[in-house]
Structures are given as C-alpha cells and as structure tokens.
C-alpha cells in the first residue's frame, strides 16, 4: 500500500502532516471488502467482454488467440457437451445438474464448486475448554478458502471493554496451511472476527487432499487469553454434484424474479437460506444511459424482505463478510465500439444478507421502496453579493430554474459559518447557502438534491443538505480557505442532480419445498397480565409467538381521561443497563434488542418512518423456548402523558455571540443563568441555564437541566409535551425536535428552539414565549406482567 511521503524537509512538520492525514486511513475490512468487489467486477467484465466480442477481422484474430488457450478449449468442449446433453435429455434436468455444482457456502458466499475440493464435514479440536472448529474448506483452481469459528472463549467485551481499540498485539495472528510434504502456504487475505473468520490461501497443488491448518493464536484474541499454537488436520474430497447438494444449501432463482418501474428492472438472481441467514443476489438494470445508480438500497428506506406470515427480516451480518450488505458490485460495462455492438443496459449487482427464515413461511417478497439515480444537469444563475456583506447576512432571491426537469425556486441566500468536525478538531469555513423552496414530486420521482459549482476563484462547491421526508434541500458554495469574500456578481453553474425514483419494486416467490399456505400464528390476549404502580395499571394487550420472535403490545388499562402511555423505557439509568426482558418459568431470560426481525400486522405498510406516538406500544423480542409455560415481561419504567398546560418566558440577551468550543463541540454561546420554576400536574419544573448552540446551519436555544434528572424512586417529570415557541417578533420558532436536537415523541425533556430569524439570518434577541399542553411523567417499576402460555 502506498505510504505517505517521507520526510525530507522537516521531520517534525512532515511527520505531523502524515499523522494528520492518517486519520483518513481506511478500515481494513473496507479495503478487503472493496477488493472482493473489484475482483468480482473484473472477472465479470472480462467474461462479458469475451462473450460480446463482435465478429470481423480483428475478432477472428482474437478468437484464434483465445482458442490457443487451454481453458478456452476446455470451455468450448464443455459448452458442446452441455449442448449435446440438453438435446439428449432435456434442458430442465441438465440445468438442475449444473446448478448442483453451485452452492451457498456459509462463511464464503455463492460459489462455483466446479474443480474444487471441499471438507466433507466440520472438524474441531478442544483445548482447555476452547474449541476451534473448521467449518469448511473450499480448495478451488484459483484460491483456497478456510472458514473457522471458536467456542468457549471469554466474551469479547470482558477482555476488551467498550470503546477500547484494537492494539497492534491483537493483530499478531498468523496462520498457514502445512502440506503433506512439509511445505507451508501463507494466507493472502483474511476476514477476522472474534475467534474466527475466513482465511484465503493461494490454490493448493491439484494432488493435495490433506493439510494441517496451524494458527499461532485465535483471531483477534489477545495473547494468553486462550490456548495458542493450534493445529487441526483437514481432509478434502473432490466436490461432486451429489456431495455439493448434500453439503451446501442450494441457491435458487425465483420463477418470476423481476419487477420494473421507471424503466429500472430489479431482479432476484439467487437466493440461499441457511440456519443463520437468507442471502439474496439482486441485479438492477436500467435503460437510461445518463443515469448512474450505485446502489439498490434506495434513497429513503433499506430493501425489506418479508414473508407471508408477517415477519420483516432485518439486515443481518453475513457469515461470509460480516457486513449486512455484501458489496459485490458488478458494473456491467458499456458496449464497446464495433461493427455490431450488442446493446447492454447498464446495471449493478448486490448481495444482501437478511435474518434467517421462519419455518412458518411459505412465500417471500422483496420490496425496494426507492432507488436513487445521479444524472447530468445543466444550467446557471448568478447572485450579487453586496459590498460589506458579512456572516449572518441573508438576502432574498427569486430565481426559477429547471433542474433535471424539476421546477426549482431559489428563494434566498445567506452567509454563514460552518464548523467542520474533523477528527483532529473543529475547522470553520464560510458558506454561501442557497435556500430552495419545496420541489414537488413529478411522476413518482423526487429531486433529492442538485450539485452546483462556481467559476469564481473565491468559491468551491460547498455542502448540500437534504431532507427527503420534508422535501427540503439546500445547496451551497464554500469560500475557499484564505480567500476574501468577494462582492458583486458570482456565477453559479449546475452540473448534476440526484433523483429518487419511487417504486416500490416488489418481487415475490414461493420458497422451494414448502407447499400450501402459511400457518399464521394466532395472536393471544392473555387475561390478567397486568401490573400496577402509582395508581396506573399496565396490561399486556396482545402477543404473538413465532419461531423468530415474540411480538407484544402493552397499554394502560382504565387510565383517567387524557392519560396515555407515552413510551416504554428500556434503559435503567441507575443500573446503566437495558432492562426490558422476558423471563420464562425455566429461568431463561430473553433480552430486548437482540432480534433484527420485525413483526408486521396485516394492515401495516412495510415501510414506515419511526415516529413515536402515544398509546399502545409494541415490543419485539427474540422467540421464547417452546417448552416454556409461563412468561413474565419486565420493564424498568414507563412514560405516561398527562394533560397539564403552562407557559414561561425565556430572554435571549442582545448582542450575544457564539464562540468556538474545544473538543470538537459545535460553536456555542456562554451559558447564562435563568430562574424558571413552574408548578404543573403536581411537579415542579425548573430550568436554571440557557445556551445558544450552532447546529445544522442554524442557532438553537437549549434549556438545562433536562427534566427527568431528579432523584430516582418515585415518578419524575420527564418532559413538556407539544411545546410551542413564539419569538419576540411573534413568529413561530422551530422546535429542536424538527432536527432531532431534542428527543423524539411528542414531549421534550430538554426543550430547544430556533433563535435564528430565517428572514434576516440573525439571532433574534428578546423575550420568547414557551407554551405547552401536557407533561410526560416517568413512572419507575419494575413493571412485571406475567401470564400462562396455552398449549401449543
């Protein structure tokens, strides 16, 4: 890997520069993952080029050249044999036989197992309670892959506390294959996880059927934390169709695998199910050659895989890469110029790993809500910067443009300072930001953002921002470091746009080997699953058990008018732990947070934004033991929303300014003292300080201390609900919730509101009026709801 330039002029300065820029070193897993993508892409391109090579004199020469290669001769012989076989015994049967040489190898991925040797069964060695297991070996003509796992190790977080980084000693892992003649083969790459991983070696000699895997240490496990110097003997067998069928899940391709919208076709090319994951290989192709689509994961939501029972399978770390998305990108190359070019639409391929399939499911549906495409766009406009303009100034514009077919209205421009949060510390720069009015969707397409630049020597392309949900966007030019803000005309050019094309693309298919209709689990409404604290009764409304999850709905029972369940608290601040769990009569505890499969009721859409609402709350936990007969749901606390109105004033002093803060914190004012005390619903709310903070291109007032931080034990005032903020000039000031400064839900523990006047771009000083119509109260538990499980 190319290293930063060596010091020649000043070791200290140049060393510091290298350190500064070393913050940009890529993560090793990213480097290795991208290498796999590129290799796959290179192989695919090469094959596509060979396949598409047009006729003509040059091509004949190329064909002669190609045919001199033995692998091409072999391939031609194989193709002839396949053609003859298809003619003789029918296409379906031949296809089935060929597919048997393809498998999904857990820990490796979709693999062509022709001309490979594989491990017939996992082998393991146990020492001092730690087991090293070799799950699979695939020795192919170009590489040898070995998948290993360990059991019995201490937990990673016990040896490495949260936040502790890998030390160089952790990487002192070495492994090799020792061949029967005593020689060794060193790995050329590996993907490591705690005590396991996938090791890749060069191809083994074709006559080698036994080898010994030797490891100095288990991967990523620190020295002396587990037995070291491992040896494990491996015996390989040639992979044959029946063996591959017996050993590996057989990938399949759905019968009707594609859906098309906006001339973009999404097809499911391969599917494989294992006990740990469902892996899909998707292909997207499109007709518009001006589009560049790098991803199939949509502009707004991630692709979702759902079944006919009600499970929505979340993305899962794949066994082969550890990443949720296997970035096996294959860009299908543009057709080369030639006498008879074969038009090939551009495309992209990706693999996605999802949580494992439920045994109840009979059908699967993949849904992709939207796809983002970059496309070229042109146009220009100009803005005139007044003499003496300074940071904080804003002036109106009325510029109408057509960008990629969308009507764009630029309403104003403002000068503001942006703090870049660099790893080495904050850095400020001046930005000329353009405000863009909401751009309406057109024909199921959303203009997500467009890209601008300027020929002016003082400016460069600046940051863009977008909020797809609210159709908001901003574009900007950034003043180059060291440049003086010019006055007068600044030309701006448009050079591209990003469009979100809405679907949904929906591809459904029956799961092979599972006939008939799905057996939908029956929702249960157990009687008497209630608990009472502080005069409030929480009850279990409904629960559904499947082999993948337990879905529970809880709500308040017989609550007074206007009192609603706000949210379930997962975190117990006193113990510092997540304390939502199910416990069965056998003493097993099932913790919240360890399932990545959602439960979808029949009337719910697959894609929905997370917007907490008062009322019944849904929880999804991992599945319970089928032998359990009694369950108890434990919750550390709940938030209850009660009516309770009130108001108070907050004064922003005139002339208050923002200062750069240390430790990568955003610019902020000095905090100033307040004395706000209100009596509401039997609680006293008290705010003692306020501070202005610059976030997301604006300035916000934050009150402290946050409510809910009082002594634990009894109910605590946790927030003010539905707050409204009126500025001194009477405008409605935006709530901090709009930009997620304050927490979600209808109530805020630390009310925050915008003090930057959008019209002037300046901080509006004076008296702000804060009103609210309800309060949130945290009622501590533990809340314990128990019920019997009927015979299943």
């Amino acid at each position, binding site marked *: *890997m*190319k*290293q*930063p330039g060596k010091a*020649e*002029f*000043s070791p200290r*300065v*140049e060393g*510091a*520069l290298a350190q*500064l820029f*070393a913050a*940009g070193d*890529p993560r*090793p*897993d990213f*480097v*290795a993952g*991208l290498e796999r*993508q*590129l290799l796959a892409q*290179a192989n695919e391109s*090469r094959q596509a080029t060979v396949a598409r090579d047009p006729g003509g004199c040059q091509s004949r020469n190329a064909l002669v050249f190609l045919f001199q290669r033995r692998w091409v001769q072999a391939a031609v012989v194989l193709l002839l044999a396949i053609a003859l076989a298809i003619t003789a015994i029918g296409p379906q049967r031949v296809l089935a036989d060929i597919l048997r040489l393809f498998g999904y190898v857990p820990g490796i991925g979709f693999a062509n197992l022709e001309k490979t040797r594989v491990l017939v069964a996992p082998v393991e060695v146990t020492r001092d309670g730690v087991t090293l297991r070799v799950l699979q070996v695939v020795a192919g003509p170009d590489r040898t892959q070995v998948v290993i796992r360990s059991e019995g190790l201490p937990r*990673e977080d016990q040896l490495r*506390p*949260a*936040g*502790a980084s890998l030390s160089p000693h952790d990487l002192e892992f070495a492994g090799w294959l020792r061949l029967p003649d005593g020689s060794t083969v*060193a790995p050329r*790459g*590996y*993907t*490591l*996880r*705690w005590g396991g991983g996938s090791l890749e070696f060069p191809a083994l000699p074709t006559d080698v059927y036994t080898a010994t895997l030797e490891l100095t240490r288990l991967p*990523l496990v620190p020295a002396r934390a587990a037995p070291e110097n491992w040896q494990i003997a491996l015996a390989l067998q040639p992979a044959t169709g029946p063996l591959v069928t017996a050993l590996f899940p057989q990938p399949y391709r759905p019968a009707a695998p594609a859906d098309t919208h906006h001339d973009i076709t999404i097809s499911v090319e391969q599917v494989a199910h294992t006990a740990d994951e469902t892996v899909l290989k998707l292909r997207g192709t499109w007709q518009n050659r001006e589009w560049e689509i*790098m991803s199939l994961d949509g502009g707004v939501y991630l692709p979702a895989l759902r079944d006919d029972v009600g499970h929505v399978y979340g993305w899962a*770390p794949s066994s082969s890469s*550890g990443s949720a998305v296997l970035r096996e*990108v294959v*860009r299908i190359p543009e057709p080369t110029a030639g006498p008879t070019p074969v038009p090939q639409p551009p495309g992209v391929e990706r693999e996605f790993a999802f949580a494992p399939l439920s045994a109840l499911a009979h059908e699967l549906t993949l849904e992709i809500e939207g796809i983002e495409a970059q496309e070229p766009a042109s146009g220009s406009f100009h803005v005139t910067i007044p003499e003496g303009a300074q940071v904080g100034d804003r002036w109106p514009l009325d510029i109408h443009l057509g960008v990629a077919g969308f009507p764009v209205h630029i309403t104003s421009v403002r000068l503001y300072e942006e703090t870049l*949060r*660099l790893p080495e*510390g904050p*850095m400020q720069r001046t930005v000329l930001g353009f405000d863009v009015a909401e751009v309406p969707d057109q024909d199921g397409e959303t203009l997500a*953002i467009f*890209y601008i*630049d300027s020929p002016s020597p003082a400016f460069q*392309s600046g*940051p863009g*921002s977008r*909020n797809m949900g609210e159709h908001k966007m901003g*574009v900007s030019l950034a003043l180059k*470091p*060291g*440049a003086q803000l010019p006055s007068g005309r600044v030309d701006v050019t448009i050079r591209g746009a990003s469009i979100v094309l809405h679907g949904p693309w929906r591809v459904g298919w029956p799961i092979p080997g599972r006939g008939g209709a799905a057996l939908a689990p029956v929702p249960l409404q157990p009687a008497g699953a209630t608990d009472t604290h502080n005069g409030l009764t929480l009850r279990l409304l409904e629960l559904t058990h499947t082999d993948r999850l337990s879905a529970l709905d809880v709500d308040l029972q017989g609550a007074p008018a206007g009192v609603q369940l706000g949210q379930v608290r997962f*975190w117990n601040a006193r113990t510092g732990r997540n304390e939502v769990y199910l416990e069965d009569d056998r003493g097993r505890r099932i913790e919240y947070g360890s399932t990545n499969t959602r439960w979808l009721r029949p009337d719910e859409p697959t894609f929905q934004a997370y917007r907490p609402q008062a009322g019944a709350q849904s929880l999804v936990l991992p599945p319970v033991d089928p032998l359990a007969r009694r369950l108890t749901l434990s919750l550390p606390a709940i938030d209850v929303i009660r009516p309770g109105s009130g108001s108070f004033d907050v004064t922003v002093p005139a002339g208050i300014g923002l200062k750069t803060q240390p430790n990568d914190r955003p610019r902020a004012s000095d905090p100033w003292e307040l004395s706000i005390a209100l009596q509401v619903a039997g609680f006293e709310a008290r705010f003692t300080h306020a501070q202005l903070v610059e976030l997301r291109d604006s300035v916000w007032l934050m009150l402290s201390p946050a409510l809910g931080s009082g002594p634990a034990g009894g109910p605590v005032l946790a927030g003010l609900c539905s707050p409204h903020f009126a500025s001194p000039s009477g405008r409605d000031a935006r709530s901090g919730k709009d930009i997620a400064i304050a*927490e*979600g839900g209808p109530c805020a523990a630390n009310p925050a509101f915008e003090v930057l006047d959008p019209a002037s771009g300046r901080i509006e000083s004076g008296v702000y009026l804060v009103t609210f119509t309800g309060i949130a109260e945290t009622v501590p538990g533990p809340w314990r709801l128990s019920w019997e499980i009927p015979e299943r």
Partner: protein
Amino acid sequence: MRELTLAEPATQAPAETDASLAQEALRDPAAFAVLYRRYAGAVHRYLYSRTHNAADADDLTAEVFTEALKALPRYRERGQFAAWLFTIACRKAAGHVRRLRPQVALDEAALAPAASPDPLAETIRQESLTSLAAVLARLDEDQQELLRLRYAAGLTYGEIGELLGRSEAAVKMALRRLVQRLKSEWEGHDEAAR
C-alpha cells in the same frame, strides 16, 4: 461483534511496476488487485482529506477504483499510473456533495454506552494536530492540494507534477517552501499554546 479484514501485508512477490501491472490487469484481475492494494490507502486518505467524512471517503474510494477498472483499457501509456488514478480521485472529490446520513434511532442511542475518555497524551497530540490543521486551513486550496497529494496520497514529486501539469523540480520546490512556512507558523503556534 468486532470484525477486521486485512489484506495480507507480509510476503510480497517481487515488486512489479504500475505500468506492467496495469497492462497485466487487462487480462488478469489479480494484477488489478495488486494495484488496488498498493493505492487503496492513499486514495482513501486523500479523499478523506477532501471530504472529512469516512463514509463519504469509503463511497468515493469505491467509485474511484470502479471507474479506474472500467477505464483501464483506455489507460495505456498515459504516463504514470498514480497520476492517472489520482486524476480520477480529484474529479470524484470535486464532484462530491455531502449527504445527511441517517441518524441513530432513538432507542439505539439510548442503549449505546458512553465512550471512554482519551488519555492525556492523546489529548496533547490531538491538540497539536488541531493547531496544525488550523494553520493548514489558512493555506489556499492549491497549496492544500499539494500537501494532500504528497502527505495523504504519498505521491512522488514526479507523479504530482504529472497530475498538476508542473515539473518535478517545481513541485519539490513548492513543497519545500510550504513545509518551511508550516514549520514557522505551526511550531510558533504550537509553542505559544504550551
């Protein structure tokens, strides 16, 4: 679960030139993989220095190598491979627009444990680098680009010269002056801060 992927850094075949690897890569993808391993870190460091965002640098690095792979047949004899590759990287960086990335879901944030504080030595080192970054920010864009290409990307003077259309000697002279300027400004700043 913590995971780590590494390309094996140890035993390397005898070093082949970039040009021969680029030629070989037209037939053998493994040759492109060697080039990739040679330049992945440099390209990423460079793009991070332009975007200040690791995720964006990841995306752009993938785009640079994807485009390089696609354009490899057109590379032939176009001078030094590194200069050609960084021409793509410069163009990608110039076309970069930051996206607002998804925020951590509320309950995930509530479940996340707090990070442990940095040791004092790390703080001092970071402060020193912060002051250097501040000095760097005062340089004009061309000067910053020169430093990025040399100290983030690790290009030689010749490669930078080819990329920027300047002679090797001119690049070396410019860098020497820049480092001397940084030395006086940063070391003065750094000393004053102690």
